[in-house]
């Protein structure tokens, strides 16, 4: 079960059905009981009214009036029947004509009452109330039995009617409760959904940290997440600063050594070694500095940073009057760490500025995200210089190998770019530009 809402809803529904169902069953039974009791009382009342109108002659014969107090006794097939049987008489109510139900008249002791449910009196089941009685006549007491019966169809119809009403109400109540529950759940879970949306925004790089206020239960989580985001950033900064300090403390002595040796005739070999050391230190430190993919990072604008680097390079290469142009898709961004992008663009553009005759073109194309979370990007840097010979390409990108000894630092540039591209799961390709020089393509697929 993947959704919290689903989980809660399922549990709540099960409980609700169980509860309302058993409540319905209990109510059903209780009402049926009380209805049956009402039937019994009604039958008892009929017994009394019949007794009230019955007359016994002194010789012990039973006289019943033509007009009975309950009209249903007189109407055939009304469902309500009566029978009074004793020594020498057996009276049946007019309603008994036709269907001819068999009301049981086994003798009962005077005063004894018997109530039967689902008694088979034909043609259908009925409630039956029998009472034993005795009349005083001239020659002592005369015992007889009075029986009143009512077909159950009326009762059944009543029960069914009640049941229908009961279950309709229980059903409606359940539906209403479920709706309310659903709403409560959504309302209760809303902070979680909002948090998820915010995290998604951060992942997509639209936001930097979690900003909204959350209920107490979630606060701990959001605070930890924010702390994590900040510390990821800070740790990287701290780490970089240390590396920077390390570079500084390693390279300054090298600079001192080199400067001291440069004036001397016998310094050649040592200077070569110093340069190699410098190269190695520089390359390894740059490699260590590359951050690679950050979990929660904001997209870094290509245009703004390319502008910065080109501005810097135009200053440094002012003599050359390089015409540097950009063709950058609006909104083109690098989903990664800013320092990595600067390093990437810096090395690519620096090489281009060094080697071009006049012209450098930087192109950035957004690769649509499709089903991925973040769009990809393709960056091309071209120049109109001599280009990189095909058999040189391998050597230039190979880690730590210098492509050219004449321009200091040129060699590790592309190797570092290669490292960074690797870290972000991208690829690098070196070819020939239509401008005549080198064309370096780096591509970061959507992810």
């Amino acid at each position, binding site marked *: 079960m993947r959704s919290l809402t689903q989980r809660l809803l399922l549990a709540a529904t099960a409980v609700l059905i169980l509860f309302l169902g058993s409540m319905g069953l209990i109510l059903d039974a209780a009402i049926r009981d009380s209805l049956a009791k009402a039937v019994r009382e009604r039958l008892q009342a009929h017994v009394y009214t019949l007794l009230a109108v019955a007359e016994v002659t002194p010789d012990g014969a039973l006289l019943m009036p033509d007009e009975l107090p309950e009209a249903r006794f007189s109407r055939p097939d009304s469902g309500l029947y009566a029978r009074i049987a004793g020594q020498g008489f057996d009276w049946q109510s007019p309603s008994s004509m036709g269907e001819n139900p068999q009301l049981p008249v086994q003798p009962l002791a005077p005063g004894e009452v018997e109530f039967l449910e689902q008694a088979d009196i034909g043609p259908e089941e009925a409630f039956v109330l029998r009472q034993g009685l005795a009349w005083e006549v001239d020659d002592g007491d005369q015992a007889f039995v009075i029986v009143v019966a009512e077909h159950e169809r009326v009762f059944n119809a009543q029960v069914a009617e009640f049941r229908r009403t009961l279950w309709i109400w229980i059903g409606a109540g359940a539906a209403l409760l479920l709706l309310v529950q659903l709403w409560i759940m959504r309302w209760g879970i809303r902070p979680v959904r909002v948090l998820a949306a915010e995290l998604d925004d951060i992942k997509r790089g639209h936001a930097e940290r979690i900003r909204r206020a959350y209920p107490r239960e979630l606060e701990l989580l959001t605070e930890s997440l924010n702390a994590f985001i900040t510390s990821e950033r800070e740790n990287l900064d701290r780490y970089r600063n240390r590396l920077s300090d390390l*570079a500084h403390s390693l*390279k300054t002595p090298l600079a001192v050594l080199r400067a001291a040796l440069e004036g001397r005739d016998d310094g050649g070999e040592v200077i070569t070694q110093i340069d190699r050391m410098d190269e190695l230190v520089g390359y390894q430190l740059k490699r260590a500095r590359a951050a690679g993919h950050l979990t929660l990072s904001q997209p870094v604008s290509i245009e703004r940073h390319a502008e910065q680097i080109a501005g810097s390079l135009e200053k440094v290469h002012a003599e050359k009057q390089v015409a540097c142009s950009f063709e950058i898709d609006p909104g083109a961004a690098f989903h990664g760490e800013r320092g990595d992008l600067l390093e990437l663009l810096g090395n690519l553009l620096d090489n281009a500025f060094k080697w071009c005759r006049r012209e450098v073109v930087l192109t950035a194309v957004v690769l649509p995200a499709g089903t991925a979370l973040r769009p990809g990007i393709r960056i091309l840097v071209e120049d109109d210089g001599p280009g990189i010979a095909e058999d040189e390409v391998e050597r230039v990108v190979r880690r730590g190998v210098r492509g050219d000894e004449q321009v200091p630092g040129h060699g590790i540039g592309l190797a570092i770019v290669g490292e960074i591209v690797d870290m972000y799961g991208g690829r690098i390709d070196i070819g020939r530009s239509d401008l005549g020089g080198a064309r370096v393509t780096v591509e970061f697929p959507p992810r």
Partner: protein
Amino acid sequence: MRILLIEDEAPLREELVGRMRAEGFAVDAAGDGEEGLYYGLEYPIDVAVVDLGLPKLSGMEVIARLREADRKFPILILTARDAWQEKVAGLEAGADDYLVKPFVIEELMARINALVRRSAGWARAELEAGPYKLDTAAQTLAVEGEPVELTSYEYKVLEYLLLHAGEVISKMRLTEHIYDEDFERDSNVIEVFIGRLRRKIDPDGVWKPIETLRGRGYRFRQFDRERA
């Protein structure tokens, strides 16, 4: 040319100062940011070389404050920190070029010369004025194609005047830009230099390239100066 060097590593600083002086620069060397900033603000500096990792005041801060105080001389950053983030930050703070340590001193000197030229408005390494052709990269002078030998001080005086051709340069200003502070300032020395320079570059007195404006200073004549 008066150069400001701010570098905290003493051996490297000494080495560079020696080398710069040998090339005819007047050098103000500082070992920390505060001292460097003071020189930069108080002395007539033509170009500065600033290490970024400095005690007391960071190189970046020094550059920013110099630019804030409207000091426009070109600045070259020396740094061991070669991350682009730091290079870009330095250049955006107002520096004009950078060099990553360790470096080849020749390259540093070439960059310094290029910066000085560029800041005076000359795009190319050769400064041309009439018959004179000064190659700032090779530090040589040719008059009508004939090479002329100059001492490094003579060269610096000529370069300074030529870079500011058409401007009146006072003796004071010339002295400040050519000599260190510890050099005994005697305006007679400048007169002697100018005299020697005139004899060397205009032995027959045909072009009269350096004019003397009484009480005001010297001025390099404006030939049809080509600014590329």
